[in-house]
């Protein structure tokens, strides 16, 4: 285990931001904390990074106690903070060189700039970079110490979909280099796509922690098969293996059920009965459905940007 957290609590005044959470992060995995804004993700990650002092509980990062052994810790981990900006009129190479001077065995920032396709921006002012380029720079600064663990807090927030996709590729690449990645996000599809394991946070608690696949399976949320056909009798369809319920609405039929052969079974049934179906689509449950089921919290409504 590279990160161990036991009964971590952190209050801000009377608000309990993190309420006794415990979890481990394994070596060389992409571990993701997901949850709406204000769930306690940033507070948790900043306690683990040694930037905040926990009110109670224990944290070990690579065997170190973060808040007390900062100097040692920061030689071993790389940190990207939520919404950092950089000095006015500093240039890309200047901030890279500055950060290199902080570490005992820094990686070559020139190589990192090349790898992240930022080398041609070397002499640009940081303030002139696009949002995506600035986030790439913040990863580069986090990688300069050649860290064993990289902490990325809301890395892709505010990026356009294309920039976010390219960021995902880089993050997966970091794991291939043997690093552990600890990230927070409030994008469910990001957590589902990237992570080896996901901790779902809500109101300062971890409500579930597992691989995205297991979380979805264990949630027992049903798959939906939707198509158009002239069917009057649903009893036949209900008897198909795996199907639990069927609804008809003006010629649109929705079949609910579970099991990996569900779609095949339903299609075979329709064909054997000679029923013509059109516009067939399936809706498999995703992490967002799991989150909704676990918390009863409608995710799309949450578009506000609050930092805790």
């Amino acid at each position, binding site marked *: 285990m590279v990160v161990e957290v036991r009964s971590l609590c952190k209050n801000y005044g009377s608000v309990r931001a993190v309420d006794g959470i415990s979890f481990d992060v394994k070596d060389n995995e992409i571990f993701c904390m997901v949850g709406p804004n204000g769930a306690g993700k940033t507070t948790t990650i900043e306690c683990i990074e040694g930037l905040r002092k926990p009110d109670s509980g224990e944290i070990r990062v690579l065997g170190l106690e973060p808040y007390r052994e900062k100097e040692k810790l920061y030689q071993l981990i790389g940190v990207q*903070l939520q919404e*950092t900006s950089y*000095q006015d009129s500093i240039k890309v190479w*200047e901030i890279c060189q500055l950060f290199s*001077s*902080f*570490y005992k065995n820094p990686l070559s920032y020139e190589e990192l700039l090349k790898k992240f396709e930022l080398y041609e921006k070397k002499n640009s002012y940081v303030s002139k970079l696009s949002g995506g380029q600035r986030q790439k720079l913040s990863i580069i600064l986090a990688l300069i110490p050649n860290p064993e663990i990289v902490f990325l807090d809301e890395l892709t927030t505010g990026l356009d979909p294309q920039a976010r996709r390219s960021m995902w590729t880089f993050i997966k690449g970091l794991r291939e280099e043997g690093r552990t990645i600890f990230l927070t996000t409030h994008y469910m599809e990001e957590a589902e796509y990237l992570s080896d394991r996901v901790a779902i946070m809500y109101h300062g608690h971890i409500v579930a922690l597992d691989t995205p696949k297991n979380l979805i399976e264990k949630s027992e949320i049903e798959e939906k098969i939707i198509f158009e056909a002239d069917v009057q009798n649903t009893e036949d369809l209900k008897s198909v293996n795996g199907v639990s319920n069927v609804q008809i609405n003006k010629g649109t039929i929705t079949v609910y059920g579970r099991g990996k052969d569900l779609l095949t079974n339903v299609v075979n049934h329709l064909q054997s009965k000679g029923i013509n179906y059109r516009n067939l689509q399936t809706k498999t449950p995703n992490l967002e459905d799991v989150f909704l089921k676990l918390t009863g919290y409608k995710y799309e409504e949450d578009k506000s940007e609050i930092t805790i």
Partner: protein
Amino acid sequence: MKSLFELTKVEFKLTLRNFPVAFFSLVFPVLMVLMFGGIYGNKPDPFFGGHGTVDIMVPSLVGAIIAVTGLMNLPLTIAGYRERKILKRFMATPISPYYVIVSQVTVNFATTLIGLLLLAIVGKLVFDLHYLAQGPAFILAFLLSIFSIFSFGFLIASVAPNAHAATAIANLVYFPMLFLTGATIPLEVMPKIMVKISKILPLTYAVDLLKNTWLGNKVSYLQDVLVLAVILIVSLVISLFTFKWEYE
């Protein structure tokens, strides 16, 4: 130590790229000397106790430079770095966050010193400036003035609840001090009421001390030294208890 050196080097570059700071600490004072020296010359003038206009202006303008670096650039940079989480980012590295403070003090000290040297060189070449200080008196006055006014500036960064407030306070403090302390306009030309107001502005004592030591005037420096020392100590003590690395 290498990281402190690198940090200071970068921050010095950034200060020189900051146009208002570079202009008002390095260029503007020289322009003032060229302008007033051009009008009045540097002949002994009974109005200034037998000293030339430029001889009076140069040490006074050093006070104006200290106001730019110590009352504007120092607090605004620190408050800005805190608000924009630049300080926090440095805290997530192996360097001590105190390096950021040390580098800022060093950079502003160096900028002030360069401003003084530029004034002295231009003054000497163009107007035959006289340096009449007794022994190290002016150097000591320069150091005390810098540390006292810088501490007062740091106090602004400590007590301001955010960068916006720091800017407001710094401006409120800076502009009266620039015009009412003798730094740019000699107190000798001011009405009595203005001279009275100048007595409550800390920079007045720095300007007076810088001027008297530079000119080698045989007067008591005690009051100036005491006031500056008290400002230094009180500002540091309050800062010690109020300074925050991060806005909550």
